């Protein structure tokens, strides 16, 4: 809640004006039934139509004034709700941008999204419509009850008896309403993920003729969802009738008890009309208050969930960083590096005692089985993760002492999984260097052997690649990510098995183009094909997180270990075919 205050205080000016407008609206509202009473009493007393006319004119004037202040009160307060929603969303986004990769590995994007969408909505409702009604209802009661009591306090009590009931019923039902709404949201989510999966695997579904079974499975979830919706409807449908019943019940009490008192001459006909008017005025705020109490509950819960995102600490602390006097050259040292993923209950160790030195401009190749720690090793460089112990150094400086932005812009990382954004190819390539001109974009596209593919696309570089690059082939996506990394003109280039979906011929073309680029910078290649790695200055074989072999191609062949084995197998296959 503390965070909420800090947001609300930013808008205290508009909240205050909104509040004043609310007060004015409420006060003006009170005058209308009173003026009606006066009119009725005037008529009953046989007064003139002109007097009634003046009263009517006053009502019109009040109504017009009220419509202005009411408009102001509503849009001021609701807009503040939207403003805080906007601030909150921006702040969350900025915070999320600072959270480390480890955070995203433990969180499902879907969960985060639902928090960012549903919880922010809940908070906004609390600050807008919730705030308005929490203030509004007391204002109405504080005015209406004394006025009514001044006319007839016993009738006031009697006619208001049903109202606390409204409050209770509405509060209870709206809690049920929210619980059931949540249920249906979960049902919808379950159905969504089912559909998502079905469509992702539609080729399997169709190839294995599983359509009908899939429809049957979907129909079951669908039936559940319908039942949840029906359960929700049962509660939702009750609110309006209860509300109507109770407010008309008040009218009935006034008519009956009040009628008797008029007959007895203890109450004027005008009082009776005024009573009915005040009950009308109080009906909505009473119901709204019940509703708001549950909005308040829900808003608080939502706020707590959002707070857990805010509490997630950006693991990377940039405070120790000192600016650099000269650009990085790219000499890399791993000094006794241990690394473990912070998994529960026991951390999973993936790197042990890694010691490596790579001079600036050299090429390092990393080979090893799946899961041997290759990717983790290179991810320590741009500080996607931090070494558990030991140090990773560039140009003799621990990466933790380098400003993060400087460090990362010096590294061109091509990840295993080619993630593209749903934008044009040009914008994807320029992702790390948005100001780059077309000539540079074409140049890197050429190195990544993309030029021919792009020429064949309908809109060339302006082709939008669709969600996650849906319109491109796996190889094309990998090559776009390569071009993207090259465009930032990195001091250190990292290719994490980045050409796995590219065919041999294209790979050869890329590697020969890359050779020119790699001469000028430090490069790290993770690959499975010997042909890709054999030219590297240093080749490292990782096994269960340990460096088990290190040296150049010839040295490793001489060592007759994993590398030599790999080499022989690949050669053997080729030679067998050569028969």
């Amino acid at each position, binding site marked *: 809640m503390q965070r909420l205050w800090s947001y609300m205080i930013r808008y205290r000016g508009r909240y205050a004006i909104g509040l004043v407008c609310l007060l004015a609206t409420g006060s003006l509202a009170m005058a*209308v039934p009173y003026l*009606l009473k006066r*009119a009725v009493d005037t008529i*009953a007393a046989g*007064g003139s139509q002109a007097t009634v006319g003046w*009263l009517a004119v006053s*009502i019109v004037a009040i*109504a017009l004034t009220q*419509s202005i202040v009411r*408009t102001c009160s509503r849009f001021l307060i*609701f807009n503040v709700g939207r403003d805080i929603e906007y*601030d909150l969303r*921006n702040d969350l*986004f*900025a915070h999320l*941008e600072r959270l480390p*990769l480890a955070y995203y590995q433990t969180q499902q*994007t879907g969960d985060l*999204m639902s928090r960012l969408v549903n919880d922010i909505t809940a908070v906004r409702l609390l600050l807008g419509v919730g705030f308005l009604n929490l203030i509004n209802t007391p204002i109405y009661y504080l005015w209406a009850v004394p006025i009514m009591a001044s006319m007839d306090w016993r009738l006031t009590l009697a006619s208001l008896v049903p109202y606390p009931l409204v409050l209770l019923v509405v509060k209870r039902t709206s809690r049920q309403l929210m619980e059931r709404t949540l249920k249906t949201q979960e049902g*919808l989510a379950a159905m969504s993920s089912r559909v998502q*999966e079905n*469509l992702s*695997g*539609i*080729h*399997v579904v*169709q*190839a294995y003729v599983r359509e009908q079974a899939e429809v049957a499975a*979907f129909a079951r979830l669908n039936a559940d969802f*319908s039942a949840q*919706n*029906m359960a929700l*409807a049962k509660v*939702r449908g009750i609110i309006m*009738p209860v509300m109507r019943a109770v407010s008309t*019940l008040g009218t009935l009490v006034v008519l009956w008890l009040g*009628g*008797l008192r008029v007959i007895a001459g203890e109450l004027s006909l005008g009082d009776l009309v005024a009573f009915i008017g005040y009950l009308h005025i109080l009906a909505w705020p009473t119901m709204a208050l019940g509703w708001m109490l549950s909005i308040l509950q829900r808003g608080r819960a939502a706020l707590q969930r959002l707070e857990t995102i*805010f*509490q997630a600490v950006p693991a990377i602390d940039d405070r120790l960083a000192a600016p650099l006097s000269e650009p990085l050259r790219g000499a890399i040292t791993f000094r006794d590096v241990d690394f473990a993923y912070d998994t529960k209950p026991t951390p999973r160790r993936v790197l042990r005692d890694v010691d490596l030195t790579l001079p600036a401009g050299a090429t390092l190749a990393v080979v090893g089985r799946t899961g041997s720690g290759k990717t983790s090793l290179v991810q320590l460089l*741009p500080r996607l993760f931090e070494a558990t112990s030991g140090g990773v150094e560039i140009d003799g400086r621990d990466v933790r002492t380098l400003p993060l*932005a400087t460090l*990362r812009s010096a590294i061109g990382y091509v*990840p295993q999984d080619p993630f593209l954004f749903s934008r044009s190819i040009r914008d994807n390539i320029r992702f*790390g260097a948005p100001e780059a001109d077309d000539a540079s974009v074409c140049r890197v596209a050429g190195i990544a052997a993309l030029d021919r593919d792009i020429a064949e696309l309908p809109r060339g570089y302006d082709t*939008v690649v669709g969600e996650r690059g849906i*319109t491109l082939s796996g190889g094309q996506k990998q090559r776009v990510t390569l071009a*993207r990394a090259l465009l930032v003109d990195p001091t250190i280039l990292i290719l994490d098995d980045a050409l*796995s979906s590219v065919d*041999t011929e294209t*790979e050869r073309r890329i*590697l020969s183009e890359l050779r020119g680029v790699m001469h000028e910078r430090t490069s790290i290649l993770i690959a499975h094909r*010997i042909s890709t790695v*054999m*030219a590297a200055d240093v080749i490292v074989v990782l096994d269960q997180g340990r460096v088990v072999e290190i040296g150049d191609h*010839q040295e490793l062949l001489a060592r007759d270990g994993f590398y030599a084995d790999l080499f022989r197998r*690949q*050669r053997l296959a*080729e030679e067998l*075919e050569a028969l």
Partner: protein
Amino acid sequence: MSAATRPPKITRLRPRRAVSAESLKQALDPHREEALGKAYDARLIRRLWGFIRPYRGIFWLSVICLPLNATCMLTQPYLLKLAIDGYVTAGDASGLGRIGLFYVAAIIGECTFFYAQYYLTMLVAQRSLADLRVQVFAHVQRLPMSYFDRNPIGRLVTRLTSDVDVLNEMFAAGAMTIFMDVLTMAGIVLIMVSIDARLALASLVVMPVLVLGINFFRLAARRTYREIRERIARLNAYLQEALSGMMIVQLFARERRCFDEFDELNDDHREANHWSNIYEAALFSMVEALASISGAIMVWYASGDILAGVIAFGTLVAFLEYIQRFFIPIREFSTKYAVMQSAMASAERVFQLLDTPPAIASPVPAYAPASMRGTIEFDHVWFAYKGEDYVLRDVSFTVNAGEKIAIVGATGSGKTSLIKLLSRFYDVSRGAVRVDGVDVREWDLQALRRRIGVVLQDVFLFSGDVAGNISLGRPEVTTATIEAVARRVNAWDFIQNLPGKLDEKLRERGSNLSTGQRQLLAFARALAYDPAILVLDEATSSVDTETEMLIQDALTTLMRDRTALVIAHRLSTIEHSDRIVVLHHGVVREIGSHLELIAMRGIYHRLYELQYALADDTAAAS
């Protein structure tokens, strides 16, 4: 306040409108609305009616409740009038109790009919929308692969879930009763006129202003509501993508720029909402004011008549009540309007999807033999994904039953397209693909696919257990069969090592299995299917040597005793095949055995040399 709880200062520093990203916004639009944001579209309502029709009994029952509800509600002010004129002003307390009882009855009736109406409407809504969802889902199952190439899955999921849910909201928020509201209001006018026509006219003198105001609101809000929907969709699409790609954002130190882009989308969304808040506040306040003004005019007008003794007090009170009730539905107008508008937009999109023809379907009558021999014939096949951009040109070759064919060629040579034509994932542009001598387009689609086992490069696993992923839920595949096939494709060992064995739950897309294990599971799945023809796109991704051996061995088992069409990447696979088809830029350039093709010294030889030369080349450089 600690550092972690303080909102980051970055929001205060933003350069306004630094990024004018119109192209970004276009790229992000998951469902642009072509229609202008109509709140009522007779064509769409008629189609929806098609889904309500099966439940029309309940539907009409719910419709009947509406006038009953209105009658009970509109009786109440009249009872007030009777009470005041007949008893209160007459000083007669005797009949008040009786009228009170009538009043109570009217309240109970009103509430009961209201609830009944809502309940029945929702019953109809749930049933017909469930039908709609199943129909859309079943329809999507039949859509051709070309459709999924063009449409991101997320968008289709939205059609089936959120869009249909918006229709649900239309019923739930009582937006459908917007028409009935008009009737209720007409009823009020009718009653007022029948009590006193001139007084009714005086009460409704503000009507033109009301109509003008609502119309103005409708026009202003139409665009704004549509903008809000588009902008929130865009904002969330951006957010979703940023979260999934956060590693890339951070690696390329792009946080600031992404924040600015997000900020702009966020701001656009806020702005649209600001406007809608202003319109709604104005409409709401206007309606409230008009209700009071209308009452005031009526009282003034009535006072003359009462003083002249033409009408009684009760009429005035009843009119005050009627005026109140007249304005109730209008207060909810803005909410219902917004709901109706988005419902129409959603309905439009859902029906559009439903109208997409399943371009590939079984013909009538279809060829559906009990078994398949497994001969394949590509007869002058031309194929393009779109237009004249052919990826296969005049491809012709035949495969005998039981023969194993390896297809080789560089990326983009048309290999994958070729195998996709066989199961009719796509239809040829020209020529014909025949299985057992019959054009695949004449086959019953299910009979054809039932006999062709497809294993694609990227193995798709469903969430669920291992056994289910092998049997794919076919009841005829017993646990014994699953074990047998798993053993034969060398998958049994690793399955035994899983904590839950065959019952081990696979995480999303089988992320708890290695690439090799996923391959073996796909083989087991295909073997359990026992097809006459095996179509396989060999995975290129590398696995460790041991797994590699297991896979190769499994592959041999899998291909035994059936026709096999394999896009081969492993030389060993090529070696085990009877013939090799070399594709080059969509054209079959060479066909023959490995030795024949090597001897030809053509493209195959070059492809083969390339692999060899590449290794040699780099070896020389080191």
